[in-house]
């Protein structure tokens, strides 16, 4: 009893970890499943087939390709635009600055269903009803990722000591050198974080995408579509890959930071 009391925090922590990781463990487990039928959600036998043959359903891989392409383009677009907007909001005093700071929060606060349907109305009203597809999805994704990029980069920029750039200029760095040698490297972690966030938001989005997709199918839409007839186990392979990839990125960054902090002398 005493042992339980002494280790209560540890036990609770472990319980929370289990609670968080059980669903992910199921995804990983199911990626090795050999089901007896498509409609049975039970582990019927171990196989590597799903991993060796992830594109068994060609629709899955084409949907995945669409999602990756939209994710990459939406990330690039929103990261560039959002970073520029963040610099403007932090560094320059202009009319409507505080209003812009407030408005940037709106897309994050608006329910996605509302956002998606309004956007659809806008596209239709603009005569794009027949053009719904890859590009309208991309426009929608850049739009909602933008706010997250601005907020992330702005926080990083606002936390930076003004004296650093002044010190660079004092040490003979021209404005361009000051930006590339001091400002940019210091803001870069914020920009990278914003880019990662954008990609996962875009890759994961279903509601806004579904309303503005026309005939294009993204990965979440594919999964939603096939759920009615039984999800192919390859979906779990993709899920596991995504999970492993993001864990690898986080561990990689952490290892790099740790190595930098090792005292030399």
């Amino acid at each position, binding site marked *: 009893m005493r042992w339980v009391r002494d280790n209560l925090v540890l036990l609770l922590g472990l319980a929370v970890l289990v609670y968080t990781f059980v669903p992910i463990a199921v995804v990983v487990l199911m990626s090795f499943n050999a089901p007896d039928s498509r409609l049975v959600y039970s582990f019927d036998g171990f196989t590597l087939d799903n991993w060796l043959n992830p594109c068994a359903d060609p629709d899955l891989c084409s949907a995945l390709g669409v999602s990756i392409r939209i994710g990459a383009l939406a990330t690039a677009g929103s990261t560039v635009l959002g970073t520029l907007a963040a610099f403007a909001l932090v560094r320059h005093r202009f009319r409507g600055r505080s209003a812009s700071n407030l408005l940037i929060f709106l897309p994050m606060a608006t329910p996605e269903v509302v956002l998606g349907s309004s956007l659809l109305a806008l596209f239709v009203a603009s005569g794009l009803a027949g053009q719904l597809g890859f590009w309208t999805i991309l426009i929608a994704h850049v739009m909602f990722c933008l706010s997250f990029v601005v907020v992330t980069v702005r926080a990083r920029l606002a936390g930076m*000591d003004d*004296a*650093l750039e*002044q*010190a*660079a*200029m*004092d*040490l*003979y*760095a*021209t404005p361009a*050198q000051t930006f590339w*040698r*001091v400002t940019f*490297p*210091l803001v870069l972690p914020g920009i990278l974080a914003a880019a990662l966030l954008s990609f996962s938001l875009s890759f994961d989005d279903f509601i806004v995408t579904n309303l503005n997709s026309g005939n294009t199918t993204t990965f979440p839409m594919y999964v939603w579509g096939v759920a009615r007839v039984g999800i192919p186990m390859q979906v779990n392979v993709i899920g596991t890959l995504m999970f492993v990839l993001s864990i690898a990125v986080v561990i990689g960054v952490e290892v790099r930071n740790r190595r*930098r*902090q090792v*005292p*030399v*002398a």
Partner: protein
Amino acid sequence: MSRLAEQEVAGDALGAPASGEEGPYDGLRIRALTKSFGSYTAVRSLDLDIPRGSFFALLGPSGCGKTTTLRMVAGLEQPTSGTITLAGEDITRTKPYRRPVNTVFQSYALFPHLDVAENVAFGLKRRKVKDVAAQVEAMLALVELETQASKKPAQLSGGQQQRVALARALINRPEVLLLDEPLGALDLKLRRSMQIEVKRIQTEVGLTFVHVTHDQEEAMTMADTVAVMNGGVVEQMGAPSELYENPRSTFVANFLGQSNLIEGTVRRRDADLVTVDMHGVTVSVPAHRVHTDGDRGWVGIRPEKVLIGEVGAELDAPGNTVPGGVITDVSFVGVSTQYLVRMPWGQELQVFAQNTGRQRMFAHGEQVELSWRPEYAFLLDASQDVAAGADRVVG
């Protein structure tokens, strides 16, 4: 660099520096410098001549305009009007990265993504100087940080970061090195040892240092010339001992150390002596220590210059003797005893008596006489606020 050398030669050829307003001057010269932020004037028509190779301190309370002045010299702030010339060249509107001036920032402003050696090399690399590695090594040796070269600033202590900031500025051998309260973030003990360290480095490299501080003790310890600033103007400028011994305003008298200021009326002005009636007691002040033309003024005397004795005792201070004091407070601080003495006119004067052992300690309530040598007294203008500069925060 050769351009600067030429000017140095030109300055020598044309005779002594600082001769006349328009003459060539090889130091830092500030003329009628003014900086306003909206309706607030931070610096008001400031004139300063800072000789090459000197350790100059701008001393004043916060908000007196000293940091603004420094930032204008660095080029980080644009003056509203006035000029700044350095070694004969007008740099008033020159971009900060084109001035032969470097700054040690109050927050140090070390680049967190670069290691110590890269921080120190930053200025040299921007100017595409050769042989950076050897210079960085020599500079790190000067500030005793050779072993820390590949550490990041965040891994260093406050004192070490301070020395990196100093090395990063010094390595460029600027015409003028600006120090903006560089020791403000350090604790008292470290600050005292860094003061000696910075002074040693300045003597070693022989560059012009302009040091901004609100700590009068720091200014007096380190600088050869101190300019006391208040409300955007320089109140008085000179060697630390000169400022301390012969202050020209109540602000300087109170901000640098402590002073007893006693109201008086001028009775006679002779060629070398001014006689003042101080609540019925006649005292004299040497003419060169009188800083008012009026017939009223503040007689000033430093607490350690006041001698204290029993009533009727013989004191080594012919001239100014003030009877009728009563001791109201005694604090023994080791090297000295500090008395508060209430005078017949109600004012309490401070007296610091060295504990030489030749005199007994006086007790609370005892009757005493005060006295001081006339050559230590000074006379200030009656229109000045008697308490100006007295409520400074000792930091």
